[in-house]
């Protein structure tokens, strides 16, 4: 998945990470990715105290060039209704139990920007190269419903 390569590059290259967070569309284009539903990509970064998750309450907006077409659950009524209202409860139901002190930032893709989550690099991966790191990054980690 293209997005996993973007994440792995950001994990190994601090200058790339900075460019990615400043202008997601341009930094993603550096790796050759772009196209419909990717004209304005905003990358939001997870940290120890912050977790990001993406939704489109009005339809199905999603960053196609990095994540492909969205899964059915992302477009489903329960996900769209609940992620903005009870994100901590819904994430727990979907298998991600975040500590109460972790701030949750929900991004509703209601206009022109399409969002991608930059997950935290897992501990114990110092010896892995970029390709091996990319293999750790799932689609759902970049939507924000799991952490790698």
């Amino acid at each position, binding site marked *: 998945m293209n997005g996993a390569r973007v994440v792995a590059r950001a994990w190994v290259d601090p200058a790339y990470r900075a460019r990615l967070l400043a202008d997601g569309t341009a930094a993603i284009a550096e790796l050759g990715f772009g196209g*419909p539903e990717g004209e*304005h990509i*905003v990358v939001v970064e997870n940290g120890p105290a912050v977790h990001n998750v993406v939704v489109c*309450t*009005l*339809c*199905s907006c999603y960053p196609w060039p990095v994540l*492909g*077409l969205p*899964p*059915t*659950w992302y*477009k*489903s*009524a*329960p*996900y*769209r*209704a*609940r992620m*903005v*209202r*009870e*994100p*901590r409860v*819904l994430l727990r*139901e*979907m298998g991600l139990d975040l500590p*109460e*002190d*972790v*701030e*949750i*930032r*929900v*991004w*509703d*893709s*209601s*206009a*022109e*920007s399409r969002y991608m989550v930059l997950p935290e690099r897992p501990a114990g991966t110092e010896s892995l190269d970029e390709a091996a790191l990319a293999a750790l990054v799932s689609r759902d980690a970049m939507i924000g419903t799991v952490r790698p």
Partner: protein
Amino acid sequence: MNGIHDLGGMDGLGPVEVEADEPVFHAPWERMVFGSVVGRQSGRNVHAFRHAIERMDPAHYLTSPYYEHWLTGLATLMIERGVITAEELEARAGGRFPLSRPIPPLPPPTPPASAAPRFAIGSAVRVVNEHPLGHTRCPRYVRGKRGVVVRHDGAFAVPDVAAHADLTGEEPVYGVRFAARELWGDAAGVRETVHVDLWERWLEPTRTTSAR
């Protein structure tokens, strides 16, 4: 319009069901519908297309698969624009073909104002409490709520206008952060925020930031 598509905050819809190893398309017709919409996007009006989906009967919307929304929106627009007739469509389909409801009478849209942003990053804003009958990308759950501008996205054609009229012009779009408690009351999480991207016409200045 306050349609069934505007789902943010609705209760009672049950758990999110995740399909393991889901294919991109579940049937050949889904791929055909996708291609019919995306492959011919140039010259098409995405705003009118979204609005056509939003006008689906709510029961149909909630009980049909995703690409049936696209198919219904596409067929509705083709009939409304005189490309085909409903009779021709039903003859080809071999039976009843549910379409979206017609657009109600609407006031003329307000043309886009200015592409120059009125609000600086960090500005306290309130979302206008209006409920237009036409298309909009302002979700119901933020109307009347206070937030803070966190991002400038540039200026874009306004969906509320572009879905209904051939007016040119663009308005600034902002990323706006809302505290969950501003949206959902004191039972909501303290350490939760929701970000919604809004066109300038939906924002007004406020001196009071969200108290929560």
